[in-house]
C-alpha cells in the first residue's frame, strides 16, 4: 500500500493506494502554523483501520518551504560572491552581498587570484553582523571549484560553528545569479527543514510506520526525506507538481493535454506533451528570486470559484481578489460559484442565495440574474482560455539555439483539457468547448494531488561536462570532478560515463532501483580548434530520470 499526502492551501488531502486502486481518502483543513500536526492528523485518519505493516511507502508534498519564504521566516544568510569580470553584481537583485576578487573563466581556468586578506576581512564582517550561515558562490565555479573551496576553508577556520554552502554543490548549470539565489535559499531553509524532517521521522516511528518516507519535488519526482535535507529548496511548489502527477496517473498514457486545476482563489495551468509534463525552460521563480530549481512550467492565474465579482460603470470584472466564501455558501459577495449555481452547473450551496448574488450583479449590468450569471461564467472561461493560449504561445516562442530545434517545434496541440480541483467539474467542459477539444474530469479529480504524490517515482538529473584538452570532467550537481584520458572521446563515451555516474549518484540518494530508467535528454560535442588543428573536445551530457509513475500503478 502506498500513502500520498498533499498539504494544500486550504485542505490537506490524503489517499491510500493499493496497486491501481484508491482504497481510502481523507481530508483535513490545513493548519499553516503547524504543518507537521495537520500532516499527522491526515495520516492518523487514513491509517485508523489499516495495518501499518502493509504500508510500503509514504510520500509527502508540503508547503513548508513555500510558506517559510513567503512569510519571511527563513534564516539570515551572508552572501559572499566571487563575480569576476562581466556584469556589475549590483545589477542583480540578490540583496546585500560581500564581493571578493578572484575569477574563473568559462573553461575553468583561473584568470584572477583570490586575495586572502580580503577573505579574512569578509569573515570579520560576517562575525560583526552576527550571521551564522554563509553562501559562497563564484562565477564559473562549477567548472573549477578551487575558489569556492578555498574561501569556505578560510571562513570555516575564522568562523567556527558557521554553516557554509557552496554554489557548485547546489547547482552546476550556467547562470551565476540563479546559482547564488539557490545557494542562499538553501542556506536559509536548511536548518528548519532538517528539524521538520527529524520530527516527521520521529512521529512515524511512534506510529510504528517503518515504510520509507519520501518528499515530492517541484519536478514531480520523489526523494527520500532524509536525503532531501541537502536540497530543501527542491521541495518548493510540490503542490502543483502533485496535481500534474495526479493527472498523469488518472489519464491515458502518452497523451498531450492541458491541465487545469481550478481552486477557490487561483487556477493553475500546466501542459503535458506526449505524456511528459512540460518543465519550465529555466528554474523556478521563488518570491523575488530566480533559481535553478527544476520545476514544471505552471502558470498561476488569479481566478477561481471564490473570486470577487464586481460591476463598475456597467463593466463586469472577475478577480483577481478573493472575498471569502461564495454568497450561496454563507459569504457576503457574489462569486463565480454563485453564477454556476444559478445556471444549474453545480449543486453546491443555496439556490436562493445564489440567485440573490446574481441579482446584485444583474442590477449593475441592467439584465436578468440568469443573464448576469452567464456573463460571469463567460468571463471566467474567457480568462482561462486566454491564458491557456498564452501558455502555448510562450512555449512555442521559447528560444532555441540549433537549427533542428527551430525546425522541429511544429505546432503541437493538446487533445484534451483535464480538470482537477474543486472548481473543475462545471468549468472545464466550457473551457474545453471553447478550445474545441475534449474535456476530461477524472474520477478522484478532487484528490488527484494526493494520488500524484502516492504514485510518483523518483527523478534525478546529472549534468556532465568534459574538457578533453584539460583531461577533466565535472558533474554539475554535486561538485564531483575527475580525469579523462581519451582525447577523442565520442558523445557515446560521454553518455556511458554519465550513466555510470548517475547510477552512483542514485545509490547515494537511496533511489538506485530507478537508475535504469535514466535517459539522455541533452548531448552536445564541440571540437576545439586552435590554429587549424583539433586540440580537444568539449562534451556536455544531461542524463535524467524524468517524472513518471511507479510501475505498480498500472491503471491505464
Amino acid at each position, binding site marked *: 500500500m502506498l500513502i500520498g499526502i498533499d498539504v494544500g492551501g486550504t485542505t490537506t488531502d490524503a489517499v491510500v493506494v493499493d496497486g491501481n486502486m484508491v482504497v481510502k481518502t481523507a481530508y483535513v483543513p490545513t493548519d499553516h502554523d503547524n504543518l507537521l500536526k495537520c500532516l499527522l492528523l491526515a495520516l492518523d485518519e487514513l491509517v485508523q483501520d489499516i495495518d501499518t505493516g502493509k504500508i510500503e511507502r509514504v510520500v509527502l508534498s508540503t508547503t513548508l518551504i513555500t510558506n517559510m519564504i513567503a512569510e519571511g521566516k527563513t534564516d539570515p544568510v551572508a552572501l559572499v560572491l566571487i563575480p569576476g*569580470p562581466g*556584469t556589475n553584481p549590483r545589477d542583480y537583485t540578490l540583496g546585500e552581498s560581500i564581493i571578493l576578487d578572484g575569477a574563473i*573563466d568559462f573553461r575553468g581556468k583561473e584568470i584572477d587570484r583570490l586575495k586572502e586578506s580580503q577573505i579574512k576581512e569578509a569573515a570579520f564582517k560576517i562575525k560583526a553582523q552576527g550571521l551564522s550561515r554563509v553562501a559562497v558562490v563564484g562565477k564559473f565555479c562549477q567548472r573549477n571549484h578551487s575558489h569556492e573551496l578555498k574561501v569556505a576553508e578560510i571562513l570555516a577556520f575564522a568562523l567556527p560553528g558557521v554553516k557554509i554552502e557552496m554554489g557548485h554543490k547546489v547547482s552546476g548549470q550556467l547562470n551565476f545569479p540563479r546559482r547564488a539565489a539557490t545557494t542562499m535559499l538553501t542556506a536559509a531553509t536548511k536548518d528548519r527543514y532538517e528539524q521538520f524532517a527529524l520530527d516527521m521521522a520521529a512521529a512515524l516511528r511512534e506510529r510504528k510506520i517503518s515504510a520509507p518516507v519520501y518528499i515530492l519535488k517541484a519536478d514531480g519526482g520523489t526523494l527520500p526525506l532524509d536525503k532531501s535535507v541537502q536540497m530543501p529548496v527542491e521541495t518548493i511548489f510540490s503542490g502543483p507538481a502533485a496535481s500534474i502527477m495526479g493527472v498523469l496517473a488518472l489519464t491515458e498514457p502518452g497523451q498531450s493535454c492541458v491541465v487545469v486545476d481550478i481552486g477557490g482563489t487561483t487556477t493553475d495551468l500546466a501542459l503535458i506533451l506526449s505524456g511528459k509534463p512540460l518543465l519550465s525552460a529555466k528554474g523556478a521563480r521563488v518570491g523575488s528570486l530566480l533559481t535553478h530549481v527544476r520545476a514544471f512550467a505552471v502558470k498561476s492565474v488569479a481566478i477561481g470559484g471564490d473570486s470577487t465579482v464586481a460591476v463598475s460603470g456597467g463593466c463586469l470584472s472577475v478577480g483577481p481578489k478573493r472575498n471569502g466564501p461564495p454568497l450561496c455558501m454563507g459569504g457576503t459577495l457574489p462569486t463565480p460559484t454563485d453564477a454556476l449555481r444559478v445556471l444549474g452547473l453545480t449543486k453546491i450551496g443555496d439556490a436562493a442565495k445564489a440567485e440573490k448574488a446574481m441579482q446584485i450583479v444583474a442590477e449593475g449590468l441592467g439584465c436578468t440574474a440568469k443573464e448576469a450569471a452567464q456573463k460571469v461564467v463567460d468571463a471566467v472561461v474567457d480568462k482561462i482560455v486566454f491564458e491557456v493560449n498564452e501558455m502555448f504561445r510562450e512555449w512555442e516562442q521559447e*528560444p532555441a539555439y540549433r537549427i533542428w530545434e527551430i525546425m522541429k517545434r511544429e505546432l503541437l496541440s493538446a487533445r484534451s483539457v483535464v480538470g482537477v480541483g474543486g472548481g473543475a467539474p462545471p468549468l472545464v467542459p466550457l473551457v474545453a468547448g471553447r478550445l474545441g477539444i475534449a474535456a476530461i474530469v477524472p474520477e478522484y479529480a478532487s484528490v488527484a494531488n494526493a494520488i500524484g504524490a502516492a504514485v510518483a517515482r523518483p527523478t534525478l538529473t546529472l549534468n556532465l561536462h568534459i574538457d578533453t584538452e584539460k583531461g577533466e570532467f565535472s558533474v554539475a550537481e554535486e561538485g564531483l570532478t575527475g580525469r579523462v584520458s581519451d582525447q577523442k572521446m565520442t558523445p557515446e563515451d560521454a553518455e556511458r560515463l554519465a550513466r555510470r555516474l548517475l547510477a552512483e549518484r542514485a545509490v547515494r540518494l537511496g533511489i538506485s532501483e530507478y537508475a535504469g530508467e535514466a535517459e539522455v535528454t541533452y548531448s552536445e560535442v564541440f571540437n576545439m580548434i586552435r590554429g587549424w588543428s583539433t586540440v580537444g573536445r568539449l562534451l556536455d551530457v544531461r542524463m535524467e530520470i524524468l517524472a513518471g509513475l511507479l510501475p505498480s500503478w498500472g491503471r491505464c
Partner: protein
Amino acid sequence: MSSKGKSGKTGLIFFPAFDWAISPTHPEREERLLYTRDQIFEEGLMDLPQIAEYKPRLAEKKDVARAHFCVPDVESQVTKAHLIAAGSTLTLADALEKGEIRNGFALVRPPGHHSMRVVHGNRGFCNINNMAILVEYLRTNYGHKRIAVIDTDVHHGDGTQDIFWHDPDVLCLSFHQDGHTLYPGSGFVNEMGGPQALARTLNIPLPPGTTDEGIHYVLDNLILPILDEFKPDLILNSAGQDNHYTDPLANMRFSANGYARLSEKLAPDLCVLEGGYAVETALPYVNTGIIQAMAGLDYSHVKEPDYVPGRFVQTGGMVREIEHTVAQVQKIWEQRDELVKDALEGLGDFYRRKRRIFYDTDMINENQEEVVRLCPDCAGYMTISTSAERGYGILNSAFCVSIPRSACSSCRDDAKEEYEEHVDDKRIGYVLMQDKDKDRFKFYDNS
C-alpha cells in the same frame, strides 16, 4: 533616430548555429559562439529586466530576393542556418516596430556583410547579407526611407556597399583595417557610391594596430557628426568583433570596453553580428559588453583577463594617418551634393560599370556588367549581366533586372522589356527579375 533616449527593453536573439560550419576546422565553425554562450548565460543576462530574449524565425525566400539576385535561385544558395540568421534580424525588426523593444541585437551566425547583390556562392564566409535583407525588409514593410548602416567589422563591408551603391537613402559607412593589408582588399576613401549616391558610401581605412583611441577618434569626429546631419530614420550596426586585439585574422588593437563604449555612443536601433574569430579571448567579453551597453547596464566590469588600460598606444604616425583619413572623408561628405551634380552632368542616360568579383571561400570568379538608368523621375531601373567561372568551366550565367521602389512608368516598361528580351536567350542561363515596387520576384530558367 537612434535608440538613445528611448525606453523599453533590449531585444536579443542568440542563434549560435551549433550545428552548422563551413568546414570542421574553418574559423566559421560550430565552436565560434560556444564560449560566448557560456559567458552570457552564466552572467544571467537573459534574466535581467532590461533584456528580452526572442526566438529566431526563418527568413522567407522573398526576404532574400529583395536584397539579392541568387543564381540560379535562393534555394541553391542558402541553408536553413542562413535563413535563420537572416530571419533573426527580421524578428527583431518587427519587435522594434511594434514598440516591444527600444533596440535589438541579433547575435547570430553565419555572418553576411561580404555577400553582394549577385550571389553565386560563399564570399568571405558569407552567402547572404543579413544586414541588407534587414534594410530592405524595414523599407518594404515599415516604409522607412533613410537608413544608416555603420559597419564596425575589421573587414571592409564590401557586400553591403555593393548592394546600396546606387542608393542615396542608405548611408553605408564602414571603418576597417586598411585594404592594403587585409581581406577583401577594398574599402578605400575613393569608393564613394554610384553617381546618384556619391558620398552615401563612405569608407574609413585604418592602419593596422589602431587602438580604442583611434576608433573613438573616428567615431567622435566623423561618424557621429555625419549621422547628425544625415538624420536617418534608423541606425543599424554591422557589429563585427574582429577589431579586437586578439583576433587571429586581423591586426587591430580594439578592446571589449572600446566596443561597449562604441555601442553606447552610436546607440544603434538594431545590431547584427558579423565576424570575430577570437572565440575564447574576445567574443565572450565583447558580446557581454555590447549587450550591456545596448541595455543601458554598467559595462565597466567587463574586461579581458589580460587587458590593462593603456596597454596599447598608437604611434604618432598612426595618429596623423587616422586624422588625415578622417579629414578626407569629412571633405567628401561636405561636398556630397556637388559631387552628385558634377557626376551626373558628365554622364548620359545610363551609367555602366564592369567588374570582376572573386569568391574566396568557393573559388569562383564572376564577371559582371551593371547598367543603371540615370532617370530624372525615379531611382532608375538596373540590369546586371553576370557569369561565374570555377576552374575552367562556366558555373552559371544570368541576366538580372531590378525595378526600384516608386519606379516611373517609363523605367518600369523598359525594365520589363529587358526581361522579356532575355527570356529564352540560350546564351544566358537564367533571367531574374526583382520588382521592389510591387515586391514580386521572378526566376526564369532558359534551359
